């Protein structure tokens, strides 16, 4: 069963691009415009999502709080998270690492790199997820 990836970014453009990239590679994608919506989506799913790809700066609830929120939910305590952002500061990166973020991708994102990293985390599309 192919993995499901949850994408959170307040920019509609970025969402579309990331979604297209991941879908194009064969995965199933859910998208949200801010952390809170992403969290809601994640909780509503019957099967937990396999990967979260999130922006850091978002209105209502940002990436940091999204991950914190996820970590409070039993089935998402260990879900891999990739952060896509233009942020480069040490503070954010430290906080992210402490929360178990697996990857920090600078925008503008190289689609191939994104696919590569996602594959490492959830296996190739079509493969059963880890």
């Amino acid at each position: 069963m192919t993995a499901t990836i949850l994408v959170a970014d307040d920019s509609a453009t970025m969402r579309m691009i990331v979604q297209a990239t991941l879908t194009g590679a064969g995965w199933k994608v859910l998208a949200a415009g801010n952390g809170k919506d992403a969290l809601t989506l994640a909780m509503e799913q019957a099967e937990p999502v396999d990967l979260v790809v999130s922006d850091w700066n978002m209105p209502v609830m940002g990436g940091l709080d999204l991950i914190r929120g996820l970590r409070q939910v039993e089935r998402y305590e260990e879900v891999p998270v990739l952060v896509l952002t233009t942020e480069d500061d040490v503070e954010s990166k430290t906080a992210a690492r402490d929360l178990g973020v697996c990857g920090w991708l600078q925008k503008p994102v190289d689609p191939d790199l994104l696919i590569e990293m996602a594959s490492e985390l959830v296996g190739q599309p079509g493969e059963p997820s880890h």
Partner: protein
Amino acid sequence: MSGLDLSQFYETFFDEADELLAQMEQLLLELDAGQPDIEQLNAIFRAAHSIKGGAATFGCFTLLAETTHLLENLLDAIRRGEMALRTDMIDIFLETKDVLKSQLDAYRASEEPDAAAYERICEVLRQLALEQNGGQAAVAAAAPVAPSPAPVQAPAATAPAPAAAAAPMDANLPLRVRISRVSAKDAQSLLEEMGNLGQVLASDQLGGGLTVWLESTCSADDIEAVCCFIVDSDQISIGREAVPGEAHAVDDFAQAAAEFVAQAQAAPMSAPVAEAPVAAAAPAHEPAALAAAQSATTAEGGAPRAQRAAGGAPAADKESTSIRVGVEKVDQIINLVGELVITQAMLAQTASTLDPVLHDRLLNGMEQLERNARDLQEAVMSVRMMPMDYVFSRFPRLVRDLAGKMGKQIELQTYGRATELDKSLIERIIDPLTHLVRNSLDHGIETPEKRVAAGKDPVGQLVLSAQHSGGNIVIEVSDDGGGLNRERILKKAMQQGIAVSENSSDDEVWQLIFAPGFSTAEQITDISGRGVGMDVVRRNIQNMGGHVQLSSVPGNGTTTRIVLPLTLAILDGMSVRVGAETFILPLNHVTESLQPTNDQIYSVAGNERVMHVRGEYLPLVEMHRVFSVSGAQDDPTQAIAVIMQAEDKRFALLVDHLVGQHQVVVKNLESNYRKVPGVSAATILGDGSVALIIDVFAMARANREKWTPAEAVLN
């Protein structure tokens, strides 16, 4: 590569960036430099951040990405508290936003954005960043941080030049107004309007456009504003130019351009940096010099254009569930519902003749039908309603820029932003409102010095408000400026040959301002009156089925009040009979009706009569006289007086008898005919005949003069 074609996302990015820029502007305008709200700062930062992210991702919007990057860094520093926010910085950010918008527009049109503007704004932003680092405001060619494109040796002016800094064009030359893509009919109207603003020296219509040389004391902005009632600002270009044939225009032009270039090179600190490309293209290229001169002259007209372009788009709902529907579809639905209401009315009329006992089920069904129709109609009308905020949101920027330009301090307050108005009216109210706001800023509110001298707060107040009242929306533009000068207006009117009397009421005097051609070229700003184009404003509003009134207290300020019907299409009406004719009264203006008794009727001067109702003496307006209906009941005690209220004016309208109350579909008379005095529109009754809908406000005014000719009375 992943083979993903990113260009399919351009459109989304452009749209999103547009919205973000509009949000950014709105937030910047709301920012209090002294105590900035951290949430607002974060939101502004995120907007810039998003735009940068998107621009950088695509890889081909370099200038946009670079500019936004610089802006983003500054915003980040500010929101982290590493840099203090100053008011002039907000100005710079607003200007950056303008540059970003034009970069975006360029990319949308598959063009490269203006390199000079880019260089300039980046330099400015870098300066700011350097200040933060404690560096001196280093002038000139400091090595740019980001990849530096064009080798423009900017005689690096630092402060962003206000758009109005124009070329040293000979101000004795007449104004040359060039309007492109205009029909013969519009060209005619435009010529006439400009004739009202000054003296048309020459005009030229070729290539589908219109060029007018005008001698006028009006500013280019005023002229553009008036033209904008007929065409769009991007069709207008205004400069100063001698009438061809009178002088060697081209040589003058080239000479002026050459002087321009020389000045730019000689005085780098004072000259606006827009001249930089000229300096760089030094071998005074004819086209370059012309272009520079052009850009300087359009800079005059540029400010209003930028403001128009700046128009606030309402903040986007990021994850809204909405559907885009073409306006024609909605209109069609409204028409169909209108037809449904007519049909239902016809059926109701027929059904009313039936025996209620025999046909009770049918009659119940008819009642139900009427309820359904009413509900459907309400629901449909609400689809087209939009909040006034759509209009009001344009003004903070406009007010700020204009106030700055005029050296005035003005605070804008808006009330009733959520008040809704039909979409078609919302679009059409923008121009008249803009005009009124400009008038308040220009002619109404005084300079801080004058205000202080008059014992007022140096900061002028401009208030925009909208509220529902009865079946109408009332929009007011109010300032606490100098008010209208009655003496000057009377004098001007007499000069113009308009019939006035010293004893006219204030209201009547203010109405004079609406006379076509009233505010002409001799208008000087210190007249403390209204500026040009008020006749166009009034005509526009009347064409929307509304009306406009002025009220003013000398020294205290002026209020312009616009009243528009809320729902164009369907009206609750009371039908009345006068003679053999049926008229419709808008129900929301009807207070009550009664049969007068003799002791309630009093005669006043001349032919007028008043009716005494509960302690008030109301003017008695006899419909059969106003509309010259023969065979009507002229004895008031045998007729019915309908007490009507038009804003603050109450009066008694005399009719033969009441017929009924029903919803009527409002049909426009002007489509095939023209505006009829005293009549706001027409409708088709259940029996298929046409009935006229009374203009309540005209009736309220009708009682002051003789009845005929009706035009003099009712206008």
